[in-house]
């Protein structure tokens, strides 16, 4: 048994070493692949030498789980921050230059100038022009908010399509893993692919995973809704093509359960669409209501009802008593005051519906002063605006800017934190499961030596054999 078995043992060592070298080669070529988990060959020795019993894949489930959570959190906050930035820019402009608050300030200034010289019709023009700018600001803001909501809706719809196709890919990868595990084959490539898809899914929605027999994976969302179990669950969403104030977007359903707000890109987009943008719209509507109310005309005789004055709206001549959805869109300059529409801006001084200055006194300022006072007086705003409900119109408009800036600040902070966390977790995951080229190169040197030693054994045994043969010859 001796020489022949020595030869076959040395041969098995050669085979095992070359197999291990191919594993090292695979590791080194995938060193830059973030979705690749390091492999190593497990050796066992038996009576006929040594052999590679399995290829071990350096996976770390708990780190992967942390990565998935950190990834969803960061993606969600990043989406939120980008959304807040574009909403703030769309409504308030660069450095809040075109915000309703700035336009209200200009308006107040023009009104004061006119009140100081009520005989000047050009100053009256100035007030109407300032009012026009203000109305445009509100109209534009509404359009921008609603356009952004439709854009988000489209983006949600694209994400849902993407999520469904990721789940279909996951199904294929999971089936490959289960099959390879069940028949004792090499599942490492399929596992890499499955983990990579899982990472992509976690961008959209926070997931938690469970592993069953044969490495079969079950994915649920963080709320416990099934996303994948044996087969992918349907993620459905009915897009809304047109958005106006008060139009509610549809929910995203996973396995028939609506997605709640939470972490992840999908939840952030739903929150932007249904909460942040809606609140901003409410704020604009309340500013518009404040304007209509402040410039309303009242009957000096105290008989007729208050009617809409300089600022009018779709429900005019009535004055909206409470939050009116879409008011910021329907608010416009009363044509009677608008010189461009053939109106007379001086009516601002004298009154339109009710003539407050029947003598047409050129120095009459009572009405103008009352408008200025109205603007400075405290009003009550709807609590759904999210800001101080009792303040004057100018402060309210400024508060809305503070509101979005504060929100942006908080989101920016948490985005910074989650980005740092993600970077740390990615690094830890990579050092736990990734490839260290130095280690692999050192291993390669060892393998080279082992191979050389085995080859030397074979040539020595060969020499011994030839000695025997020479003796026989």
């Amino acid at each position, binding site marked *: 048994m001796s020489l022949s078995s020595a030869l076959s043992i040395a041969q098995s060592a050669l085979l095992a070493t070359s197999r291990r070298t191919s594993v090292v080669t695979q590791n080194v070529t995938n060193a830059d692949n973030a979705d690749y988990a390091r492999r190593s060959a497990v050796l066992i020795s038996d009576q006929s030498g040594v052999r590679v019993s399995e290829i071990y894949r350096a996976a770390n489930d708990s780190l992967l789980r942390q990565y998935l959570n950190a990834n969803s959190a960061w993606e969600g906050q990043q989406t939120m921050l980008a959304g807040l930035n574009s909403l703030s820019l769309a409504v308030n402009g660069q450095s809040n230059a075109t915000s309703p608050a700035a336009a209200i300030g200009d308006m107040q200034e023009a009104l004061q100038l006119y009140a100081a010289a009520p005989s000047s019709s050009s100053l009256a023009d100035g007030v109407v022009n300032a009012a026009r700018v203000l109305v445009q600001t509100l109209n534009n803001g509404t359009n921008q908010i609603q356009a952004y909501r439709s854009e988000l809706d489209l983006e949600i719809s694209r994400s849902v399509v993407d999520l469904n196709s990721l789940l279909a890919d996951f199904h294929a990868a999971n089936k490959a893993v289960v099959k390879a595990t069940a028949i004792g084959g090499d599942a490492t490539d399929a596992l890499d692919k499955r983990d990579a898809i899982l990472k992509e899914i976690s961008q959209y929605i926070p997931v938690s995973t469970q592993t069953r027999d*044969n490495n079969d994976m079950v994915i649920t969302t963080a709320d416990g809704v099934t996303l994948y179990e044996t087969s992918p*669950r349907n993620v459905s969403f009915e897009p809304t093509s047109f958005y106006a104030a008060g139009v509610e977007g549809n929910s995203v359903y996973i396995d028939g359960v609506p997605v709640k707000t939470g972490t992840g890109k999908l939840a952030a987009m739903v929150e932007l669409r249904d909460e942040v943008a809606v609140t901003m719209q409410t704020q604009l509507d309340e500013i518009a209501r404040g304007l209509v109310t402040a410039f309303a005309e009242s009957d000096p005789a105290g008989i007729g009802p208050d009617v809409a004055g300089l600022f009018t709206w779709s429900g005019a001549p009535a004055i909206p008593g409470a939050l009116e959805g879409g008011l910021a869109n329907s608010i416009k300059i009363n044509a009677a005051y608008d010189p461009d529409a053939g109106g007379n801006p001086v009516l601002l001084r004298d009154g339109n519906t009710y003539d407050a200055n029947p003598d047409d006194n050129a120095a009459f300022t009572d009405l103008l002063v009352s408008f200025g006072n109205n603007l400075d007086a405290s009003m009550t705003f709807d609590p759904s605006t999210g800001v101080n409900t009792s303040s004057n119109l100018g402060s309210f408009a400024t508060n809305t800017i503070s509101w979005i800036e504060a929100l942006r600040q908080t989101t920016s902070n948490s985005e910074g934190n989650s980005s740092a966390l993600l970077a740390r977790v990615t690094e830890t995951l990579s050092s736990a499961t990734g490839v260290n080229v130095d280690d692999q190169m050192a291993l390669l040197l060892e393998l080279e030596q082992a191979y050389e030693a085995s080859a030397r054994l074979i040539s020595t045994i060969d020499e011994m054999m030839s000695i025997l043969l020479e003796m026989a010859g």
Partner: protein
Amino acid sequence: MSLYGMMRTGVSGMQGQSNRLGTVADNIANSSTTGYKRSSVEFSSLIVPQAGSGSYSSGGVATTVRTSISQQGNIQYTTSATDLAISGEGFFTVQDASGQTFLTRAGSFVLDDQGRLVNAAGFYLQGYSFANGTPSAAANSFAGLEAVKIANLPMTATPSTEGSYSANLPAAADIVAAGSLPSDNVAGSTYTNKTSLVVYDNLGGEVLLDIYFTKTAANTWEVAVYNQADGTAGTGFPYSSPALATQSLTFDPANGQLAGGGTISLAVPGGATFQLDMSEMTQLATDFTPGSDPKVNGNAASSVAGYEIAADGTLYAQYDNGTLAALYRIPLATVTSPDQLNVLSGNVFSQSALSGDVTLGFPQEGAFGKITSGALEASNVDIGEELTAMIESQRNYTANSKVFQTGSELLDVLVNLKR
């Protein structure tokens, strides 16, 4: 007489050594033959009864051929699952084309055109089929054995009959009032949590079960199970057919563990009766958290992906969804004295008068060894040993020829005494 006797002794010595050289030649020729067992020659002396103490008549040497059948060869690993090696005692039972049964250790089996496993020497592997239930070995006869045949296996599907699901239900959830419970199956029914499970019907089709958990009173939850295919798109409710099952779960307020209603029985549409075990459910003051492994048995229609032969000799068909189906069990045979078996061409052995009767059994049972799939038993010949034996035999043969030569020369001298 003694000179002739001496010459004949030399001849018998030469014959003995040439027998030994014959086995050496065979051993070297078969040093790479799978399952080959080396032969060797044992010598025994032949003594002629002596007439008196003063003279000696030489006898000779008798040879007996021994085959080291019971000596294990090295196990060498291959990449074919149908290559089989026995570690330990036992032989495969194989049949030749004419139906005669032999024993062998050469397990390099491949599939033939009919799906039978045939080894390199053309012998067919025999096994017991699972077609009529779990087989048992007939201890002392080859009855019941048939050629192992693994071809044209049909696709199979198994309906689900049992499964388990566990989760923690949030103890602090709001109570849902009667009237809009999932069991009422009205549009906009309210539930606390929902999950879904895939089960298989009789044809292996996937049926998605929507499972609703609804808190109806303190420590009491309603479970309603619907077939998702009947649901309204998007939200589910109302379903076009009534709930497959509704059940009330009660929890022990002392520890949050399930107190009653742990098993739900329902008829899967187009499938079997399915028992869902929910005994591990809890109701603790935290969020809805699915448990670690929802399990459902049964499988979708799947085709055979490969074969696996376990160490106990069971040959399984592997379906591509990972399930295994036992097809054959490969028995091992042995005799009392394996080294005395008749050695025949093709690395097979047959029972001889000296070997004792054949006994059958299954691998890893009793004295039988285990079957390793994807491995072969190499020849137990060692070249070094054979070469030394060859040199030794060569020298002995030369020495014997010298004896003969000397006898011949002495006879020459004797004949030349008379001129």
